[in-house]
Each structure stands twice: as C-alpha cells, then as structure tokens.
C-alpha cells in the first residue's frame, strides 16, 4: 500500500511543481535576508551611537519583534497593508516585507553585540596608532565583528528558511502549499500520498538547512579553539 503512495511524487509534473514551490520559498528567504541584513547593519550601527532617542526607538522596534510571533507578523502585513493603506502587493512581496523587517530587528542585535564585544583595548590601540573613527571602524572593528557575528547570522538564515514554511498561511505558492494541492488532487487514488509528499518536503527542508547549521557549528568551534 505504501509503495503506491510514493508514485504520487513522480506523476505528471508533480515533482517539478514541488521544486518550483521550494524555489519560491528559498527565493523569499534569500531576498528577505539580503534586505534584512542591510537594514539590520544600519540599525545595529545606530544602536551603538550615543543618541538616546535613536537607541530607544530601535530598542522598541527590536522588542516588538521579540514579542510578536512571525505568524502574527505575516498577518499584520497581509491584512493591514491592503485594508488600511490600500497597498496591494502580491503575497510573495508581503512575505518579503514581513521577513525583512524581522531579519533587520534580529540582525541589528547581532551587529550591536558583535561591535560591543570587540575588546576595548583593541579600540584603544587602534586610536593610539592614530586611526580616525572611520579607519578604526573599517580596519579594526568591522573585520573582527564580522568574524564574531558570522555564526549567529548563519543561524538566523536557517531560521528564516524554516520560517518560510509559514508562507502557505498567507496563500503564497510555497513548497508546502503546492504539496497540499498535490495531496488533495490525488487523495482518492493515492490515500497514502500524503505521507510521501510531506516526507519529501521534510527532507527538502533538512537538505537546505543542515549544511548551513553544520557551517555555523564549525565556525563556532573554530572560534572557541582560538
């Protein structure tokens, strides 16, 4: 019985459609990460500045994302943009918007943490060599901070990829949504198809995420050996 279910995966264009769905998920994750990391870097830098007001506003921003689950975030964008502001974006872009804002919040904290954890004496010895603030940032802080923040950033990326699984809730044609359609279409002929479709999606997510996790672990272990 079970072996009849697996054939669902390869009937017609099913497999290609699933891969197309996966591509949508990965595409949203990558675009959101790029935008989010850019905004997050700026926010992170601003949070190391002296202005209390800026720091406070950005802290509120960060705390908002700490409090609100990503599902809720997606629905906030999904309902409020068109209904309140009359902005009608395709669901894919709404997802990118919500994810980018979330990534920016988390990454700003990673950037701030990394910049602040570059030891004070590094800063001082840079200044003592006559570097100006920009040179200090560019040559001393930035490269050390990137090393410090890379594992956390990769972890964030794996979380963003996993979170793309929520996209079906706002009707994006992601891999899970495609999977559900295939299951429904074949439910009569292949009742066990559900097992294989979800099984494949499970494995697909693992294949995308696991190498990133390994990389991050490897970097962390390397940093600890130093």
């Amino acid at each position, binding site marked *: 019985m079970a072996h009849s279910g697996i054939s669902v995966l390869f009937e017609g264009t099913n497999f290609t459609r699933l891969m197309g769905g996966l591509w949508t998920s990965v595409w949203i994750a990558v675009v959101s990460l790029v935008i989010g990391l850019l905004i997050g870097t700026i926010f992170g830098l601003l949070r190391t500045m002296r202005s209390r007001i800026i720091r406070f506003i950005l802290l509120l921003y960060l*705390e908002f994302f*700490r*409090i*609100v*689950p*990503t*599902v*809720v975030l997606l*629905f*906030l964008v999904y*309902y*409020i943009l068109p*209904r*309140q502001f009359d902005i009608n974006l395709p669901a894919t872009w709404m997802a990118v918007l919500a994810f980018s804002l979330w990534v920016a919040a988390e990454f700003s904290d990673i950037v701030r943490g990394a910049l602040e954890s570059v030891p004070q004496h590094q800063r001082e010895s840079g200044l003592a060599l006559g570097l100006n603030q920009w040179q200090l940032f560019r040559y001393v802080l930035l490269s050390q901070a990137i090393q410090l923040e890379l594992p956390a950033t990769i972890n964030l990326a*794996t979380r963003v990829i*996993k*979170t*793309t*699984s*929520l996209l079906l*809730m706002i009707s994006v044609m992601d891999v*899970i949504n495609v999977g559900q359609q295939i299951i429904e279409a074949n439910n009569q002929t292949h*009742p*066990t198809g*559900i*097992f294989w479709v*979800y*099984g494949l*999606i*499970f494995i697909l*997510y*693992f294949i995308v*995420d*696991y190498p990133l*996790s390994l990389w991050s672990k490897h970097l962390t272990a390397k940093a600890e050996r130093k």
Partner: protein
Amino acid sequence: MDWTIIQQSLPNFVQGFKLTLWLSLVGIVGSIIVGIITSLIQYFRIPVLRRMFGIYVEVARNTPLLIQLFFLYYAFPVMGIKMTAETCGIIGLIFLGGAYMAEGFTGGFNGVSQTQIDAGEALGMNQYQLAWYVVLPQGLSLSVPALAANIIFLIKETSIFSVIAIPELTNTALDLIGMYYRSNEYLLMLVIAYAIIMIPVILLLDWLERRVRYGAFGD
C-alpha cells in the same frame, strides 16, 4: 476601531490566552526534560544512544515545526496513528524544543573550563562525581541564556498550532477575522495578548540570567 467588537470577542481571546499559556508551559517543561536527558546522553558519550539522539537533534533543529505538525496530524493517521490536534501540538513542540534545549545544555556543559575539571580530577573525583558536583551545576548556569532564548522561542512557536486548528491565541484571532472580517481589532487584541504574555516572561528571564551569572560566577 470598534470597541464593542473588542468587548464581544474578549471571552474568545481569554480562552485562547489560557490555551496558549497551558500549551507553552507543557511544551517548555517537556522540552527541558527531553533536552536534559539528551544532553546527558551526549555528555556521558553513551554508545548507540548518543548517535541516535545526535540524529534526533539535527533532524528536529533543521526542519520547520509546521511540517513536523503536518506529519503528526495529517500523515500519521494514514499509518493508523490518530491523535487529537492538541496532543500533536504538544508532541511536536517538545520534539522541536527538546532538541533546542539539548543544544543549549550541551553548550553549557562544554563551556565549563578545563581547569575546573582538572581541579575536580586532582581531588580524586570519578566521572560521575565530576559531572554531578562540577560540570552539571556550572554547565546549567552557563546554559541559562540559551534556556531563556529557547523559552521565548517556544512560546512564540505555539502560534503555529493554528495551522492544525488548535484554538490558541493566533487561531482564535484568525477564526474571528474569517467570520467577521474585522482584522484591525482582532489583530490588535492578538498583539496585546502576546505582549501580556511575553513582556513579563522576558523581564523575568533577564532577571534570572543576571542572578544566575552573579550567583555562579560573581560577574
């Protein structure tokens, strides 16, 4: 904003609120238990089990909760295993959370300095005494920041239960939006409800982190 709508839906939200709290609590406690057992198996390098639990941690951490829930709720019945949505939710959350907690505890145990272990060994402690008196107490203190992050993460993950129709907070709000088409009011209430849960939890965990750091290491 229509206040009467907010008033009328209050009982629904209170129900959802209670369920979110309850599911979070069970999920967190379960995750901590699974996490401790898993990390101890790794720490003592118990053969076979260590490999199995290692695979478990990687699989659970690198796949989304939503797919884990779909599997439990939709695919398992095909194999003859039927569970209520809430049971699936709790099992899924503990499966996921246990792996995250295990990583946190293992990180803590590995963070105990080699000099402390040398000192324990030099006093003639055996492997178990070393674990019980030196590595576990210090390792658990070291893993409190990870524990705190995981607790916050798991509470928020309960929102995903809405996809298998567990009437927790998010599901309650989505249901109401679907029925009455009033998204602003219900979304506002949803955000406030999460704030009521998360703000005290975050403050409490921050306090705990500071206390444990000072208590264990004095800085």
